[in-house]
């Protein structure tokens, strides 16, 4: 295994607001390797965007508290002074955002906005920067770049604007590209084009990508590894194959079973996740997912689970108090069309402490560190 390009360790980001402290990111760790793609999946308010905005120092402010480490190329981005971080941002790490219309300045020509990004980090002539802008527009598949470079954003369609945003991100050949919901505002056919483009660019330029999305379909297409986030934490982390073939966390199951899919027979009932995402100011006690979890046990309300590796797949980590064999049986049931209500008894059987069902290794090791919840 090579040295990771970006290594995030126990990142915590909280914002002080008038209503209280928002714990947006709460102890998140992940690594991204050169040339690989990490998908971060979660709902609004799960902290998926905040964790990557922090990479670029975009969450810094007088009322923000950031702890932990983000090591990139030997430097800790959390501790880096603003001026130095500025040299990293848009240069070694670049970002593309969800809404290409509001991320492009409507008064300036697309070409100028690209040239500006070149000049911000390179000492080159304007004409060289312009040549680079045209080259990049061509790279991202914009037809007739010579003419397009002098057009305004409103003259571009949605898909082309997102291509222009990608071109802008690639200006300085970043080692890491962070794409925050890059296709959410786009139609499916254009979405497929953009995903194909990202895949292709990654192959050609060898950069690492972090893609942030709520759409499991999108990450299945593009990611090598997936982190599922819930309420500011990563609750499950595994390779893309593993997440879809043997998901371990009840929230991941919920996500997989609550969306209609083209590859599942029609007429199969959707299984929604009950309730709604928790407040990040007053977080639930114990496991943050317990108020919505169909398999919740008494102790889950008190014990705060940590992410631990599976015995048979060390790369696959999950923060769940259910015993591994119970989880396997529940997922098998869900996958064959049973409802959570029918499978709930499996969870209680597992924690009843019968001699046969060896209470989860993870569960016992966590029994002693009781939840210091609420704070």
């Amino acid at each position: 295994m090579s040295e990771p390009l970006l290594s995030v360790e126990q990142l915590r980001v909280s914002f002080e607001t008038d209503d209280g402290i928002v714990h947006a990111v709460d102890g998140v760790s992940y690594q991204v390797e050169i040339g690989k793609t990490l998908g971060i999946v979660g709902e609004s308010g799960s902290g998926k965007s905040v964790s990557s905005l922090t990479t670029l120092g975009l969450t810094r402010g007088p009322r923000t508290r950031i702890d932990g480490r983000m090591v990139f190329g030997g430097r800790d981005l959390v501790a880096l002074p603003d001026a130095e971080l500025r040299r990293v941002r848009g240069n070694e790490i670049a970002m593309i955002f969800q809404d290409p219309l509001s991320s492009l300045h409507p008064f300036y020509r697309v070409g100028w906005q690209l040239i500006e990004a070149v000049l911000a980090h390179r000492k080159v002539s304007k004409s060289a920067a312009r040549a680079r802008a045209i080259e990049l527009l061509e790279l991202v598949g914009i037809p007739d770049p010579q003419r397009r470079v002098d057009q305004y954003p409103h003259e571009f369609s949605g898909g082309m604007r997102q291509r222009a945003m990608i071109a802008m991100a690639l200006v300085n050949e970043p080692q890491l590209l962070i794409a925050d919901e890059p296709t959410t505002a786009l139609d499916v056919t254009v979405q497929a084009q953009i995903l194909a483009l990202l895949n292709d660019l990654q192959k050609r330029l060898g950069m690492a990508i972090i893609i942030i999305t709520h759409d499991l379909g999108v990450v299945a297409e593009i990611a090598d590894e997936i982190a599922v986030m819930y309420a500011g934490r990563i609750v499950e982390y595994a390779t893309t194959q593993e997440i879809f073939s043997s998901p371990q966390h009840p929230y991941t199951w919920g996500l997989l079973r609550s969306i209609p899919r083209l590859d599942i027979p029609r007429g199969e009932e959707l299984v929604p996740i009950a309730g709604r995402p928790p407040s990040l100011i007053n977080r639930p006690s114990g496991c943050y997912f317990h108020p919505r979890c169909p398999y919740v046990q008494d102790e889950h309300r008190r014990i705060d689970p940590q992410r631990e590796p599976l015995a048979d797949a060390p790369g696959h980590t999950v923060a769940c108090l259910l015993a591994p064999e119970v989880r396997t049986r529940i997922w098998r049931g869900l996958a064959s069309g049973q409802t959570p209500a029918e499978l709930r008894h499996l969870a209680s059987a597992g924690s009843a402490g019968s001699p046969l069902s060896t209470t989860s290794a993870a569960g016992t090791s966590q029994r002693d560190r009781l939840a210091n919840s609420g704070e």
Partner: protein
Amino acid sequence: MTAAGTTPLIEVRDVTKHFPITRGVIFQRRIGAVKAVDGVSFDVMPGETLGIVGETGCGKSTTARLIVRLLDPTSGEIRFDGRELAAVKGEELKRLRREMQMIFQDPYSSLNPRRRVGSIIGEPFVIHGLHKGQGERKRRVQDLMDRVGLNPEHYNRYPHEFSGGQRQRIGVARAIALEPKMLVADEPVSALDVSIQAQVLNLLQALQREMGLTLIFIAHDLSVVRHMCDRVAVMYLGKIVEIAPSDVLYHAPRHPYTGALMAAVPVPDPTGTKRERQLLTGDVPSPANPPSACRFHTRCPKAQPVCSEQDPALEAKRGGSVAACHFPLTDDEVASSLPLALTKSPVAAGRTDQAPSSSAAATSSSSSDST
């Protein structure tokens, strides 16, 4: 399902809606028109769910607004329960409006932030002078709240105190308050979080079963539409390019655009479903200046010279789908581009060898003006 023999609740015939493009401030000159809907015909049976899918700007939302008469068509006619919508006026229109309701996409902008939820849901009663007593009206509203899964005790709260999913439930409660015959839902879940979408979809399905509602469901998400709808119409640049029962459309699409749409849907399963996808190139052309003849010919992988000269008619194709295409997809092409699970369908192409009664109507009328 389309019950044979019954009369359609909604009949849409050759409907067009053109929005003028003007230039000048005081003397506005008309310099063109956006042909948002351009010759659309279909029927909807009572109790049926019809889905309308398509990309941004294909005219699906305009079609929805025409059906509930929030807009008047430029030409063509829409019949609701046998009555022509454009001819209905005054008191009669008000009575007709009780039977058709709409749910909007954005649960944030479609509720008045200064009104309490009780008064938002009770507004239809006020407008139509129903349940006049204070206590009676409140009880009715609380019944509705209970029915859509809201806590009736939250009667006096404001919209901002509710989450997105709950707000959409408020919108649903308001829409069913008058016990309509038909509900038009325009992208009802696209603004919601994934874990909440299923809650609202299940609610709509349950209400439809209980109330025998006819549902017109508009979305850009093909998987959601397949889940919800008995029959699906695919729109492209103001026209229906294909219309068929869900099982037929999703397993044996005939129009290359439908095929491309389906191939583009990302499937959340990295194993075995890697398909030889043929991605569409380019973007949807402007509806102000649509391509000649078949509007899809500029992006179509199967386009031939005839496609830019002759507008294809909507007609029954092999397998039971009704599509407007000179060169419909073959079974092999379908098999190579669709998700694996869809191609191995229990619904063999032979089962529906003739077009269903309701879509037959759609075949008769597709000769619209081609620019």
